[in-house]
Structure formats: C-alpha cells, structure tokens
C-alpha cells in the first residue's frame, strides 16, 4: 500500500550562470541562450518523496508543465527512482502566471488519480515567487505545510514536519491529503542511479523500445514505465480560458534592463598606503569605530 505521492518539478533557466548573450538588445531575455536545469528545490522535494517511499512504501508520480523538452527533468526523476512521469505540454499553457500554472497543475493532479501527499520545491529560481505550491493546495481544497526543512515523522495517517520560520522553527502535524513545499536544507538530493539511467535514457517515445533487456531490470522492485505521459489541455479536462495567458491576471507592463545609477565613486589603489588612508578616513568620519 503506502502513500501515493505527487511531486511537481520544473525545468528552469540557469539564472545563476547568465552571460551577456542572455539579454537581447531590447532588454528582453533570450531564453534560447540560457542553459536549463532541474529547479534545485524541486530536487529536494523529489528526494523527500523518495525517502518517504523507502520508509513507508508508496508510489511517486512526477508532474511537470513545460515545453516538450521539459521531458528531460522528468527523465531525471525516473533516473532517481520516481515511478511515473507526466508532462503537461500545450501551446495554450504558454504565458501562464502562477495562478494559471497552479490551475493547470491542479487539473493534471486530479487526472493522475488519488493522492495522499503532494511535494513541491518551495520556489523556482526563475521567478522566486513560492506561490504555485500554495495555489495548487487551495485549488484542490487541501491543507498545506510550507517551508519544510525536515520531515520528522510519517505514517499512513499523518505527517509531522519542521517548518522554518523567521525566528526559529515550528513542528507541525497534518493528516492527509496535504501539500508540502520543501526547502534546500531538507536533504541532500541523490544522484541518478546508473541502472535507471540505462533503463530510461531513451524513454520519451510513445512506443516502448522492445530492445530493453528485461533481465537487466529484474532487480528493481517496481514496474518499469514504458513512456512519459504527455497531456494537453483536453487530456486534463482543463478550461482553456483559465490556462496560459488568458488565465493569468498579472501582465508584464514593462521590462527594463538594469540601469546603474552612478554615484560619486573614488578609485582606491590596491596599495598599503591608500587602503590605510581609506580606513583612517572612515574612522575619522565615524563610519567605523
């Protein structure tokens, strides 16, 4: 039996490694020039799900919304031990803000079937909003525990977790179903399992590759899926008006590339004399004591 778990994952541009080419002349972002990565805290959410599965048994389904090549992050999930993977992809999902994104994910989660526990990364590094998790929970009308830095106890009835807050932490408990948003300090995500990489590296085609060596996979306890499911608006019974741009109340009015407001700046040479003079000056101005 065990817990039925859903993990939402996102492929994001690697905003930490932005180069000059990432910005177009008009100040907009050139997404094509940016490498994509697995959103870091989504890996923590996946790791937590896999740990729970190891403790109590269960089933882990990963869901991602994105362009067709977002299947790559779902393959990364399978390499680490996820049981099932669903990509929701449709041009009509494009331009979604957090509200429209959470609507589409809510529809997909309902389509995927019954669940006990939904795990999301606390936030994605491209928007840093931390909004989609709670919005999914509200749309599913279930409880949420956000900013979780450790799962302390879990059984078939309830989950107890450590929630990081400004001046310390709380120990909180909830029954199921519940949605968790997981922070980077929750765990150290495992790396891909070589056998699973062999199993799933060519997945993505609708047709199962019959050349798989079944005996090679016999050591694995769970059934091997033959393909990543890809669902469009109709497949998840979503209202197209609530998806993508038309379902997004927030609009981008203006994008500015960053203009540095200059201040009177003094160049200090990297010499003992000039640095000593600077420090003395700051002392005499009572900036430093």
């Amino acid at each position: 039996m065990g817990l039925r778990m859903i993990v939402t994952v996102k492929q994001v541009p690697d905003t930490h490694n932005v180069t000059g080419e990432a910005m177009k002349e008009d100040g907009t972002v050139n997404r094509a020039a940016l490498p994509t990565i697995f959103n870091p805290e989504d890996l923590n959410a996946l790791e937590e799900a896999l740990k729970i599965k190891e403790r109590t048994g269960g089933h882990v389904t990963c869901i991602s919304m994105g362009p067709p090549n977002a299947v790559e992050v779902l393959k990364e999930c399978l390499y680490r031990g996820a049981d099932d993977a669903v990509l929701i992809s449709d041009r009509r999902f494009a331009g979604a803000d957090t509200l429209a994104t959470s609507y589409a994910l809510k529809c997909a989660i309902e389509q995927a079937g019954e669940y006990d526990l939904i795990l999301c990364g606390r936030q994605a590094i491209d928007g840093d909003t931390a909004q989609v998790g709670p919005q999914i929970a509200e749309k599913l009308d279930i409880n949420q525990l956000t900013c979780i830095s450790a799962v302390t106890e879990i059984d078939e009835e309830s989950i107890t977790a450590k929630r990081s807050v400004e001046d310390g932490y709380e120990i909180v408990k909830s029954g199921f179903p519940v949605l968790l948003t997981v922070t980077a300090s929750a765990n150290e995500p495992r790396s891909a399992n070589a056998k699973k990489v062999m199993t799933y590296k060519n997945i993505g085609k609708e047709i199962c590759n019959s050349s798989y060596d079944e005996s090679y996979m016999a050591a694995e306890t769970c059934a091997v899926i033959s393909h990543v499911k890809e669902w469009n608006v109709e497949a998840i019974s979503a209202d197209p008006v609530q998806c993508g741009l038309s379902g997004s109340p927030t609009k981008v009015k203006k994008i500015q590339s960053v203009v540095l407001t200059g201040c009177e700046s003094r160049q200090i040479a990297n010499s003992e004399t000039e640095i000593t003079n600077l420090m003395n000056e700051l002392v005499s101005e009572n900036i430093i004591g």
Partner: protein
Amino acid sequence: MSNKKNVMVFIESRAGKIAEVSLELLGAARDLAGKLGVQVEAVAIGHDLKNELTVLGHYGCQRVYYINDERLAFFSSVPYAKTVVNTIKAHNPGIVLFGATTMGRDVAPRVASALKCGLTADCTDLKIGEHQIKDKTYKNTLLQIRPAFGGNIIATIVSPESVPSMATVREGVMKMITPNPDAAVEIINEACTIADNDFLTEVLEVINEEKAVNLKAAQIIVSAGMGASDPEAIELARTLAAALCGELGCSRPVVDSGILDKDHQVGQTGITVRPNLYIACGISGQIQHRAGMSEAKRIIAINKDPNAPIFAIAHYGIVGDVKDVLTKMINAYKKA
C-alpha cells in the same frame, strides 16, 4: 464604511507581537492610498491582539478589521487564508499588501487563488499608474515593480482586471513612517466563521532560535560573493567583520552553493539592509543583490574585475585580489 477601493494591509503577528514588516507596509499603503484618495485599512488575525492594534494607527492605518479567536492563536494556512478571503469579500479593497515572510508567502497565494486575482511576489517598489490593454485604459492601477529572472531585469507587473491587486514585499524594503502617537485607528471586531474541521494543521511546538547573525541591525556588513567564496577569503571577510564589530553577509550564489547559511544572504530574496558601511568582496553586483544593499550609506567594492557592475554603485572601488585587499584592510585597521 467607505465603498471606495481602499488599500488593505495584512497584519502579521508572531507570539502576540505585530511584525515590523506590517508597520512598514502601512507606510507604503499610506502613500498609495494618498495617490488614490482612499483609506488605509488592515486585517489582523489572531488571539488577544487588541492592545497591540492601537499602534497600527500611529503608523498610518485608519481602520483595522480584527478577527479574534482562540483557535487563531497559532498560524494555520487554511483558516488564515479563508479569514482573509472573507474580509476581502466583505470590504472590497482595491489593493492588498502582505509581508513576504513565511506567513505572508503562505497565505497570500492561497488568497489569490481563491479570489482568482493577481499576486506579485517580492516587490521592491509599488506605484500607482495606468495601463492600456487594447483600447481600454485602466487608470489608477497598482504598478508592482520587482527584479526578475535572477535579477537581470526589472519588471513592472500589473493586474488591472483583477480586484484586488495583491503584492508581497520583503521586510526592510519599505520604510516605516515616523509614528504619530495621536493618530487613532478604528478597530472593527469581526467574528471568526471558520469551521473546526478547517483547522487542519496542529502546531506541536514553536522553537525560537537566536539568529547567529543579525544583518538587519548591523551597522557594518562585510559581504562575500563568489569571488570571495573560498574558505580563506570567507575567513578574512569574517575577521574584518569581527574587527569592525560588524556582521558577515554574502550574495545568493554563496548560499546556494552551501558555503554560508541563508541568514547571511543580502538581496532581493535575502535580507534588505541599510548599514553605515557595506564592504562588497568579490560580489559582481547583480540587481538581485543590489536591491538589498544599495541604500547603504557607504559602499566599498573590492573586485578583481574592473568592469564589475558593483563599482557603479560603490563610493570606493578597489580593483584587486580580494584576499590581498582584505588582509591590507585588516592590518590597516589594527594600526589605526
């Protein structure tokens, strides 16, 4: 009751004390309300907060809807979000502001989802302006300004068709107004209508931990970026910070790489600081970081790249090896 679309602030309280960010937001709300010719309202949820609420008036709040219930003494997502939704439905504010705290970031998205309205996270500025969609002009709409895309651009977000428009703002971003002890706030008690079975989270324990670092209160911050992230450079930055009675800060990639704890992070998604002196060591100076420190009274930038954007906002620029410069600074200060 006014039928104008007022500006409403979600008042956050922790252990019966009103959070600073809520008072800061009242100042921002007062500016917005002034431009719109409307009033500043608030929604306060909790238990036995009444004595705390008078201070809201001092900071510019005209009316607070107060939902007092023993069951609301501890934060719980569903009851808090439902209470805010009920208050918004009853009083129709045009703008609702939340602190971008763990509580605000938990409640605000649930509220936005329930009301199907727009919500912009971590705004660094809020203005009133107009927005055009096709041939329709929306006047007096909330302009929600925030760095986006890892801080490489600044985006102005609007949600003109959404009532209300909602935004979260980090602690320290908005300035508190000078309190006026004579300004009174009208406290309106409202009943809590949340059913027992909506209280789905049990808070078993609340543990307060003294923060090892207190960047907000620090007058001097020595901050390390990826250009100063090797152990030796971090140690030198820490030594200089200690010598100056300051704190050690850092940029986001240093936290993401697991080198320093999140409590040290300065920037849009970290802590916003206004120290007397900020020494940026090996920090390139992305907008994401600058959003959290550009209002320091003095900024010293140390970087080996003379073209690093941090130099544009620094009062003193030192081009050179971080470890070398820090060592010279430590020695110079010891002699001074």
